[in-house]
């Protein structure tokens, strides 16, 4: 998959390369600035009486060129933040739809740098959140990875296979670059674990709405109210619901409890079934707009 001699970060465009200063984001800043760009989005949404909408797409899916069009289309349709997945060979937290999208991106040679470049191209329109499995971060080199994130307009990184107990080293490195490591909380998490998560979280907490992997479900969110109530008692950070939310009505339900909602597999499934990129942009924009309306705004 990787051409000979090519190394992570070796083919960076200007957008990916760490810069000294980047659009009001203090790259060398400490804890205080971590997650600041994300808080701004949540504060503004709250003031305007709506929930934050965060569509997810696997970076480089269905192709790097088409992916950048989809991102623009999500933003046009009302996305507040875009979550981009770094395609990974062994995504254990993902269901079949996201898995297949990652396989397709990897088969085209999509790399972590390509995903950072996608964020960098739209960085002036909204903050980005990356979803990266821990091995892709370790292989890139955590210091360089988070510096490149900051330089590409990535404000937070979700690491789905990094529970709070193992997160300290990466949280520290990310904080040096002003990037938030987004921690996840799940229905089976005990109260003691939620304390741990709330104590270490920056930016927002990703609430896993179902006990399971990503993917659309007829019913979702039955376990969400209890999880959210237990988290609210322990944190003032914004809570964002994801996993299993694929329709405007499911998003509305989750939005009654949380400060933001992530939709992913439903969008990717639409793209996978679209005959052309124009059709993919049109159908996904329709879902993003309808979800936007369901979440206010």
């Amino acid at each position, binding site marked *: *998959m*990787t051409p000979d001699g*090519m*190394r*992570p970060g070796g083919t960076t465009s200007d957008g990916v390369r760490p810069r000294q200063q980047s659009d009001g984001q203090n790259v060398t800043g400490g804890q205080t600035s971590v997650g600041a760009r994300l808080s701004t989005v949540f504060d503004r949404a709250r003031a305007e009486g709506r929930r934050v909408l965060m569509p997810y797409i696997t970076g480089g899916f269905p192709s790097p060129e088409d992916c950048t069009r989809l991102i623009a289309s999500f933003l046009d349709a009302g996305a507040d933040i875009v979550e981009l997945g770094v395609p*990974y*060979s*062994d*995504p*254990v*937290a*993902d*269901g*079949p739809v996201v*898995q297949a999208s990652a*396989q397709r991106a*990897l088969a085209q040679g999509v*790399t*972590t740098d390509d995903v950072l470049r996608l964020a960098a191209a739209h960085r002036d329109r909204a903050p980005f959140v990356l979803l990266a*499995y*821990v*091995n*892709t*971060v*370790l*292989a*890139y080199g955590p210091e360089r990875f988070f510096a490149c994130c900051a330089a590409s307009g990535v404000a937070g990184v979700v690491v*789905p*296979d*990094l*529970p*709070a*107990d*193992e997160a300290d080293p990466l949280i520290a490195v990310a904080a040096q670059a002003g990037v938030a490591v987004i*921690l*996840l*909380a*799940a*229905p*089976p*998490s*005990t109260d003691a*674990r939620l304390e741990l*998560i709330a104590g270490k979280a920056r930016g927002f907490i990703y609430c*896993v709405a179902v*006990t*399971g*992997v990503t993917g659309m479900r007829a019913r979702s969110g039955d376990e969400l109210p209890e999880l959210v109530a237990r988290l609210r008692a322990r944190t003032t950070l914004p809570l964002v619901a994801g996993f299993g939310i694929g329709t405007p009505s499911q998003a509305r339900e989750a939005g009654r409890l949380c400060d933001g909602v992530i939709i992913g597999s439903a969008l990717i499934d639409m793209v996978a079934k679209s005959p052309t990129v124009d059709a993919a942009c049109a159908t996904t924009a329709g879902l993003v707009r309808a979800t936007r309306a369901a979440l206010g705004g």
Partner: protein
Amino acid sequence: MTVETRFGRYGGRYVPETLVPALDELTIAWEEAREDAAFQAELARLLADYAGRPTPLYHADRLSAAVGATVLLKREDLCHTGAHKINNALGQALLARRMGKHRVIAETGAGQHGVATATACALLGLDCVVYMGAEDVVRQELNVVRMRLLGAEVRTVKSGSCTLKDAMNEALRDWVANVRGTHYLIGSTAGPAPFPVLVRDLQAVIGREARTQVLERFGRLPSEIVACVGGGSNAMGIFHAFRDDPVRLTGVEAAGEGLDSGRHGAPLNRGSTGVLHGSFSYLLQDAWGQVTEAHSVSAGLDYPGVGPEHALLKDSGRATYVGATDSEALAAFRRLAELEGIIPALESAHAIAYVLRGGEGGAGFASDDLILVNLSGRGDKDVHIAADLLAKEGVR
């Protein structure tokens, strides 16, 4: 006594948050069960009366003559279901029942762990689902039939390389979705903590028996212990009792078409450090951290990762890890059959191959060397593959 989560810098629990409470629960359950005399007595009874322990220590005379040293085979191939895997499956199935989990899931490569798990579940009346890569379902068809006969549901995994790695991914996804009532019965000393310790503890019976048997028979310790390494459970099982003894420990990885061919299953020889299936260890990966496909003629060694305790043993120099190629393993498979009337599993044949070539670097053994080999499984399951490949190579 607490179960360790790290071996030096290796190990840990790199899994979705959803699974962490279950890993905590399992850790506590094992800490209690391994100190519980009643639990240990029940396990010992099953290992003796049901699985056939202790397994014999066999002095392989003709093999010894062929290599010029004394070679002893620890006959795990004589265990019920045909491999050492039953030791772990019985222990974890008892633990699952103790924890009130009525559903067990497992991954399998060669099918030996799947058969052992299906067997233990049949014995204890637990529901059993086994994930197996599509490629392995074809090359280990006999074991698929055995699992179904034992009442297990075999789910074919068609993602990724369609082998053991992908079966393990799919089992982890099942566990994420069904964590409350399900126990994931991992078959090797890999995976997130506490599995590397849990599986090692349950397999350590191999080394405890062998150590006693060798001392009784020869009045001294072996000079070297040899075992094949995929995820590493049979090797940890026989190494553990000898960890503080002046005994060479040698693990034999699958060199596939050669360690420098790019087609092998040898992460300790040719991999780099990273995270796979929940633990930090050595693995086969590209520069971006994408896990690359392993290759081995033996399905049980066709895995790009390795248990974290082996990573520490490698770095510390306490154990040495070498490779044996597909053709060496096939030759050893045939040679052991001819010399001793024992058909080994293709996995175990890698350890035999190392002995047949005269040990490290092919330097040969000293005549007073006492070589203890873990013959981890029997080769019934491999006969048709071996026939095809031997024919292709023109070996007569």
